[in-house]
């Protein structure tokens, strides 16, 4: 993931306390409601956790210089991915779109020109996320971009726990003794990008780089990871971060 600047690592041991504190101090009503909606207890078995897969396409990799172009979400549980309840928004990044990213996301200038600012859909987005555990593939995009975008518009950001399917893959393929041994041998590390990770679980190749398709792909990947390496009664605290 070359080009992503190093960030402060967010490690919360007490997400519930953090959320309650944010709810008390919240200025925006939408943000207050978001933080007021309780999340499942860290001990909840993963099979009982309501989740929502989230993916964003952005104009680049740095939230200070780049902006969000589209957001896709798909609510799901370990049992079912509810595609009928999916949501997808294209938003105006208010920052220049470079040609490379256009070909990458297949979202054009005219589509963006007609799209609303994130402000217009933010309340709705927060309602959809509230009470669900957000699942992303590589949290270091979604987390800082969303935080920065909300902070720019409401004067306060949003941080919340996430399940990161990429970091689950990293635990398996980058942090084991075997992975270190491979690295010592000079072998290239196993790819933990979304497509490559899905392939390892026999999941089909989807056309990538569409926020909603990637959100669906992420939800499927988490189901596969839990089915393969965890158990339905694995507590949430072992998986989120």
């Amino acid at each position, binding site marked *: 993931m070359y080009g992503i600047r190093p960030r402060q690592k967010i490690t919360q041991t007490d997400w519930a306390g953090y959320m309650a504190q944010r709810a008390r101090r919240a200025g925006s009503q939408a943000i207050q409601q978001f933080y007021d909606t309780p999340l499942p207890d860290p001990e909840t078995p993963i099979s009982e956790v309501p989740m929502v897969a989230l993916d964003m396409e952005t104009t680049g990799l740095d939230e200070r210089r780049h902006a969000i172009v589209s957001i*896709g979400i798909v609510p*799901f549980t370990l*049992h*079912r*991915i*509810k*595609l*009928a309840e*999916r949501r*997808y928004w294209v938003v105006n990044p208010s920052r220049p779109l470079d040609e490379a990213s256009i070909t990458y996301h*297949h979202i054009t200038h005219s589509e963006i020109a007609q799209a609303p600012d994130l402000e217009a859909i933010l309340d709705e987005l927060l309602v959809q996320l509230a009470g669900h555990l957000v699942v992303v593939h590589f949290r270091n995009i979604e987390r800082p971009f969303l935080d920065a975008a909300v902070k720019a518009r409401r004067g306060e950001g949003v941080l919340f726990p996430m399940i990161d399917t990429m970091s689950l893959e990293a635990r398996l393929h980058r942090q084991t003794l075997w992975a270190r041994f491979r690295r010592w041998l000079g072998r290239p590390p196993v790819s933990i990008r979304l497509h490559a990770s899905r392939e390892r*679980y*026999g*999941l*089909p190749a*989807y*056309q990538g780089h*569409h926020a*909603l*398709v990637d959100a*669906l792909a992420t*939800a*499927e990947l988490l*189901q*596969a990871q839990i*089915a*393969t390496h965890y158990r339905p009664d694995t507590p949430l605290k072992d998986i989120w971060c």
Partner: protein
Amino acid sequence: MDVELLEIRQHMGRFPPFDGLSDDLLDAIAEQVEVSYFKTGSHILVLNEMLEELCYIRSGAVEVYRSQGELYNRLGEGDIFGHFSLLRNHKVRFPAQAIEDTLIYFIPKAVFQRLCEEDDHFADFVELERPRLETAAEQQKKSNEMMVTRIRKLLTRYPVMVEASTSLQLAAQQMSEAQASALLVLKEGSDNPRYSFKDSEGQAWQMCGILTDHDFRTRVVAEGLSSQTPVSEVVSSRLITIQSDASVYEAMLTMLRSNVHHLPVLYRQRPVGVVHLSDIIRYETHSGLYLVTNIFNQPSIQGLARLAPDVRAAFVRMVQEDANSQMVGSALSTIGRSFTRRLLEMAEEELGPPPVPYCFMVNGSMARNEQSIVTDQDNALILSDDFDPEQHDDYFYALAKIVSDGLDACGYTYCKGDVMATNSQWRQPLSVWKGYFLDWMANPTPERLLHSSIFFDLDSCYGEDIYVEILQDLIAQTAPQSPLFLAAMARNALNRTPPLGFFRTFVMEQDGKHNNSINLKRRGTAPMVDLVRIHALACGSKAQNSFQRLNDISKTQLLANGMSDKLSYAFEFLCMSRVRHHMIDLQEDRLPDNNIEPENVADSERHTLKDAFQVLSNAQKFLKYRYPMPAQRSGR
């Protein structure tokens, strides 16, 4: 359409039954699917759980079981399951388990019901086996004009009819006036109910014969008869007729089989017209007729052998014109019989007239009128009981040799089992043949019957038809009373079983093992023929053709209601599949064989074939119960 759902609808749009859906319906499905991942070994559907969704395999593989745990099917990408239960009480009847890591799209019940209501093709597909086979079989039938056009459509006028006492001269004058090439001869009375009818004044008449231009030449002028002779003295008493609602095709076959050119057409017993071969040729120029005429015009075996490519061409044309398996089967059998007859004529020309009467019998597919393009010869000689081996056998051996070698030269290869008239065992007088059949039926063992079951498909090809009819009667009388014989035949019929279906590029066996190809004759049509033969023998049917046998069986209580229809559809589909693959082989310049490779089987054909195999497999299981081996007497 949301672009994000394109992924899903494009995938579904590639597989039946979704491939025929409108874009709107595909969108409606993609909008509503739910998705779930199943690890290898995990249960997707559990017996008796409620089911509210149709399952679509996006990736991976799934095994479906019967409620007793027996493997029902193995499915891969693009296959669906759960529809049987959805169509019924929504309880899972066929549990399913992932045998690879699998991604399932669940289609909600409401969407499934909408698809069934709005799309007939989809509804047909998800119904149980019968409708799909039925639809497949009927589509083939409908698309063929000749099969559905009734012979009465070809009639342009009433027949010329005269009384039996009319003089030949007057009869000839009437024919000339009407520009007819044949007239029907009537007499008063009704002693032959088959041809009796009443005219508008209530007078009872019956048809006693037909007189043609050809008869005037050969029977009147050539014989020097007086023009005042009554027609009744020269009329041909061999009356071959057809009902007005028979198809053009049946009429054509009747002419070819009986070697007549005029056919009186009856409405019940009343004559309504006469068709001539040329009427049919005019109607259907692309038929096997020219070929058959050509066969009879060949002066030598070399000439006959040169017609082999024409046979293949006629076959390909017939299949391309959507002939059904019965048409293809009987046309090829007619062609095969014509070769045989012509060879016998040649043999008699060479060897002189036969010293005693004989019947040249055909067996197997030719007797059943189900011949395919890949075929060998199965035949035998039934000789008059006046046959004396010392005096006559040299003649008949020579005759058999000419025919057998000739057939081989024409592409009907020698029978590997030596079921040919050249084998002295199968060149015997009628009394010996009766003995053979009685012995087979009275002292059966599966081993003995293995090689003789082919004789239970028997038909006359040339000569004294009555000899074969006597044997057919004997079998029809004896077989139903021979439980041991039926049981032994049933045991043999189970030697060859169908596969379970296809899985990806493999043929899947009942035990789940994979094969690369399947012999559709050995594993499909032949076991079906065996099975139908046993039921036909049990009910005393004298029919030889499997469809006609099934028709006879359906009139009895041997099979559950509707079962014989199911078997007919399944058989038709198996035969057509085989025929189509033969055609593909021929078009691609390969030697046609009975093997088909799964990758050459279209998706929709796969599903229907699987249904047909299923029908066959169930019918085979029933055979065991229906004709059990009578209990062995044990020592205790």
